[in-house]
């Protein structure tokens, strides 16, 4: 899966490439708009990450060229400016998502994965599973090692999200947005508490812990060797 990063801030670009590479993506980095546009139009990439302010051609122009060439490669914009006009402009031109600096890398990674997943059609699942944890989407029941676990509606939604994106570190802001539809930065520790309560029901009685905290980044559901 190849990604293209067009970012003129050297450090930002390198950190992004390193992070994305380590997350399993093959990322190319260019620092100017003209090369960026040439590469973007080559249709080799599954996703474009564009800075708005670029030398040569700005992010908007690259996006226009890409959409003008009939490509529907997902585009994620990065910008230091959080003007609403910018956001509206970008979405009108066909940008798929938007991140304002400063942002957390975990947030970017989660969005990249969402965008990449959007294109591929997933078959309608009836249940989700990891190790001995099983979530029945139709009967809305959760079992672990055959034992029934009672969850509230939100706990169920939270676990469903973790299971659907198992192995991915999910930042708190993404969880708040997806599970509770709270689309703003909040410094509340509701998510921590919610995860703790979910753990109490899902993990506590079992030696094989599935829900993990990644310090400073978020939470991940995965099976780790004991």
């Amino acid at each position, binding site marked *: 899966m190849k990604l293209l990063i067009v970012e003129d801030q050297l450090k930002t670009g390198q950190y992004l490439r390193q992070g994305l590479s380590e997350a399993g993506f093959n990322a190319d980095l260019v620092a100017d708009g003209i090369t960026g546009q040439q590469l973007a139009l080559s249709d080799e990439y599954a996703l474009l990450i564009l800075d708005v302010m670029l030398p040569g051609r700005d992010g908007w122009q690259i996006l226009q060229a890409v959409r003008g060439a009939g490509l529907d490669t997902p585009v994620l914009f990065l910008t230091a400016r*959080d*003007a*609403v006009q910018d956001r509206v402009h970008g979405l009108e031109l066909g940008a798929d998502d938007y991140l*304002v600096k*400063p*942002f*957390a890398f975990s947030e970017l990674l989660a969005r990249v994965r969402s965008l990449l997943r959007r294109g591929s059609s997933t078959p309608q699942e009836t249940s989700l599973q990891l190790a001995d944890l099983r979530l029945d989407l139709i009967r809305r029941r959760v079992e672990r090692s055959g034992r029934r676990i009672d969850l509230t509606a*939100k706990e169920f939604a939270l676990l469903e999200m973790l299971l659907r994106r198992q192995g991915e570190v999910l930042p708190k802001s993404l969880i*708040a947005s997806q599970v*509770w*539809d*709270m*689309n*703003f*930065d*909040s*410094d*509340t*520790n*509701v998510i921590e*508490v*919610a995860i703790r*309560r979910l753990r109490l029901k899902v993990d506590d009685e079992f030696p094989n812990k599935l829900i993990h905290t990644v*310090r*400073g*980044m978020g939470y991940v559901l995965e099976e780790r060797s004991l």
Partner: protein
Amino acid sequence: MSRWSLSNRLALLFAACTAVVSLFAGVLFSRGSEAHFVELDRQLLETQLIGVRRAVQDNHGHDPQVRLDDELSRQADLTLRIKDSNSAQWHGSPIPAPPELPERPGLYTLRDADNDYRVLNAPLYPDRTDSPQLTLLLNITHHQHFLQRMQRLIWLTVGLSALATALLGAWAARRGLRPLRRMGAIASSVSARSLNARLPEAHMPIELAELARSINDMLGRLDDAFQRLSAFSADIAHELRTPLSNLLTHTQVTLTRERSLEDYREALHGNLEELQWMAQLVNDMLYLAKADHGLLALHREPLQLAEEVDILLDFFAPLAEDVNIRLGRDGESLIEGDRNMLRRALSNLLDNALRFTPVDGEVRVRIVDGAQGVSVSVENSGVGIPADLLPRLFDRFYRADPARQEGSSEHAGLGLAITRSIIRAHGGQIRCESADGWTRFVIELPKNN
């Protein structure tokens, strides 16, 4: 013209007015005196005409020639011509007569190169058709000289009075406009350093008082904005100082000697926490800055407040259950507002309420639907907040809990300021009251806006 000073313009207008008025008066006067002279001359000539007719007609043994001469000798500038069908005869003092004389009866005014004349034509015998014609010729040159002198005088008066009013007007205008210059002087003393100068409204003329008030209001707003901006920059610097110095110290200390992998990981985690706190702070500050500049773009949509509050209570439920706090909502209302912004505002209030509610306490949201607007209050049981601290709660970086040190928690102290900005962007107000073991944040939102 647009570059002329106000005083000059006023002076010029004054002068023009005076010139027009005095010119009008002068023209009237000169017309009047001319008509008056014509009337005088007519009377004189008609009197003479009667004398001449009598002298010619009443031949009681006297020589009409003698009597005519006698009659005409009393008026030195008068000449008579008697003309019948074939001859003309002149009587009286020999004055130079104009070459062409009108033939028809009536009063005429004539002039030749040097002199002006009034001429009266009349038949000698008014009741006979073949009567010889009398022509009385009066030299009125001295009258005309008088009129000309007078006209010159009038022009002089017009000119002088216009000049005088221009000068006086300029002086008066300068004097009258003195408050304006004073305003200018005060305005020019205003700079970013001294925005507290104000124009003395009470001492201004009525016309300028309004302007002075507007300017003072503007200065007030500028001052306020500037103060906020300065405080804002100072606040940012102050708030960032602690985490920055933590980062510097921590990183340098970590790097001073070789450490275990675990120590490095720990150090990076510590840094990450500081950095996240700073990022959150910067984002919040930017949000507030946008709000301050009226740049929060509201996407208004109809919102069922009860529904929104229930979603928020559901969000906070884990937190509340953790410390056994009861959450409740009553009332409902339909309003127009920005869903995400209002959720953020209410979430800050609920978060705040939960923070200060003791174990086994209660947090309630009360929606009261009024005719004018909707009030939403978020209230929590607990110790309450001293009255003198209430107005400061919405200040940036204000923390009611003194134990909460700056930079020591994930909470930057901007939540309530952001809430207030959002409510204001919706045209509403927020206040806090605290009494009888309850602290209550009351939002008043206007309806149909």
